[in-house]
């Protein structure tokens, strides 16, 4: 029972991170119909950005409890950095290709991904060595319910993730900007006729998606302090799993991405706890294939008829 609850709790905690990353994939796909492969590198940049900020704030390695404002400074700084990066990348690399075949945009995304990874490898940026993230949150256990340890880190991860997702939900469904975003994702041409600046909305989508990925990166670094170097395949693998989450939830659907993220996290950790810890990736990708066979449009998306 304890193991079950503990696994569920870990699964939800990891799943909320996947959900945050998946939102960026799904929002971009909803508007531009392309898989932004550079998104996992924005996530990496978020984690490393937080590391650099924490170092600048003078947080040193073991034990020393960071003040709470430092954690939020790192979070805010990383989000600002990645938001800017998202804006620049869209402007410089994707916008010139807005009307090119989709494969070209995809290759460009792969190129951007390679670029970010390898700039990160340079000695004056992040370097080629893995680093250890200073503790952003004190390593304390808040309380123990039914033998399940409720750690502060997990609470912060879930709390911040849920807050951000609620904020996004509000932005998309209750503001003018959100209405414009939905209109553009429904049909960019008609949205443009209605006086919506499509370019500005696309930029905004990239900025928001990148900021969410950055937040996920910071929270990931807080939860798992061993930071791999920027070109390490784990970053892309995490991004791919988040992408799977977006597909499982229904690509292009914001609520679907949140649901998919949680589902992927729970499935992965239950598989790791009860079947074999070595095959974590296998559960996620098997879930993807089963899902595509059973319900290719994803859990929440409506099946769209293709018009000629």
């Amino acid at each position: 029972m304890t193991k079950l609850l503990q696994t569920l709790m870990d699964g939800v905690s990891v799943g909320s991170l996947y959900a945050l990353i998946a939102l960026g994939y799904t929002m971009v796909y909803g508007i531009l119909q392309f898989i932004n492969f550079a998104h996992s590198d924005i996530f990496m940049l978020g984690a490393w950005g937080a590391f650099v900020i924490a170092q600048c704030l003078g947080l040193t390695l073991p034990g020393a409890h960071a003040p709470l404002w430092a954690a939020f400074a790192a979070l805010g700084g990383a989000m600002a950095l990645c938001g800017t990066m998202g804006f620049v990348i869209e402007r410089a690399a994707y916008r010139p290709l807005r009307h090119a075949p989709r494969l070209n945009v995809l290759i460009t995304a792969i190129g951007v991904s390679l670029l970010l990874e390898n700039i990160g490898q340079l000695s004056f940026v992040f370097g080629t060595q893995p680093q250890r993230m200073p503790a952003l949150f004190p390593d304390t256990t808040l309380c123990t319910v039914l033998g399940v340890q409720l750690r502060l880190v997990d609470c912060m991860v879930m709390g911040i993730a849920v807050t951000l997702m609620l904020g996004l939900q509000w932005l998309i469904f209750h503001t003018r900007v959100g209405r414009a975003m939905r209109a553009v994702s429904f049909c960019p041409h008609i949205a443009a006729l209605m006086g919506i600046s499509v370019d500005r909305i696309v930029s905004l989508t990239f900025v928001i998606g990148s900021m969410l990925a950055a937040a996920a990166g910071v929270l990931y670094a807080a939860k798992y302090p061993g930071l791999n170097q920027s070109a390490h395949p784990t970053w892309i693998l995490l991004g791919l799993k988040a992408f799977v989450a977006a597909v499982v939830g229904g690509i292009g659907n914001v609520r679907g991405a949140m649901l998919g993220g949680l589902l992927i996290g729970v499935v992965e950790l239950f598989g790791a706890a009860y079947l074999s810890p070595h095959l974590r990736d296998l559960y996620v990708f098997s879930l993807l294939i089963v899902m595509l066979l059973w319900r290719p449009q994803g859990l929440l998306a409506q099946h769209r008829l293709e018009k000629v």
Partner: protein
Amino acid sequence: MSQTVKKNLRVLLLSVGLAAVLHGVIVPMVGPFAGKLLTDIGMNIILAVSLTMVNGFTGQFSIGHAGFMAVGGYVAGLITYYGAFFLWGSTQLVPGFFSPGVGLFVVACLVGGLVAAALGYLVGLPSLRLRGDYLAIVTLGFGEIIRVVLQQTNDVIFSVDELRRASFATLVTSVGGALGFTGLPFYTTAFWVYVFVALTVVVAYRLKFSSYGRAFLAIRDDELAAEAMGINTTQLKIRAFVLAAFFAGIAGALFAHEIGTTLNPRELGFQKSFDIIIMVVLGGMGSISGAVLAAIVLTLLPEWLRFFAEYRLIVYALVLILMMILRPQGLLGLHELWEQSWWPRRRGKMVSS
């Protein structure tokens, strides 16, 4: 024998001759390092041209090509390593240009290709019924599953006693795990690589300029319209995909038996698949000679860029992005090298586009 078959056989025989010259004269002349580059180029040509059949001809997007490569490589490795032990009691290389070991190796390449093709059928069947990016997502998942499963396998069995006692199931699961399938005999030579290159290119070329190929291109340009013209889109997409998987399997088998490479799951992950996609798109979607050219350039480019030291991959990425923005159709576009306007051509010979 019809005219076309004769012509193709002639081209194939000529290529075998050229491969022999390459192997016997050029490789000894340029030394082992350039020789390895030459075989690497050949393998990349097979991979790029085979992926062109899917990505370029039918416009489907597959990101799991390295997965099929891994399947072909491991199946072929099982045959040349454990199979050789049961045939002549040793896992070592049998030297000689046409030794029984080489014969076994060629069989292993073909079997590796066939197994990869069978898996391609299984993967393609559900995902190619759907339209859109689903093949990309499924092949991505498939490639990762292959990698994870291979990483969980047992160590390669080296000792003769254990080999004698091992059951079939033990052997199949003893392919090295995360460390890779080590100890495979180095049968891959420039000759065999380029024989398979010739086979791949001729098949791709015949395919492109046949009614099949026209149907493929129709699917690529507009799937709904193609279906309305009476093309069985699902079936044709699956055929292209299976054929591509077959050649990827062969390339994997060649890769497995090359000197200086280890067949390991990490090497054949999505990064390798991305490399192959980049070759196809850079060459021009659907251009065979473009894919060949891009495979050559992209194999050599990292070597040329060594000059930039740690900035090498940054320059590579920038070249890629700029190329996509400035020349989105790739080096050659859909057309072949000899269909370009600057290519000298004989008068009166019409070129089909």
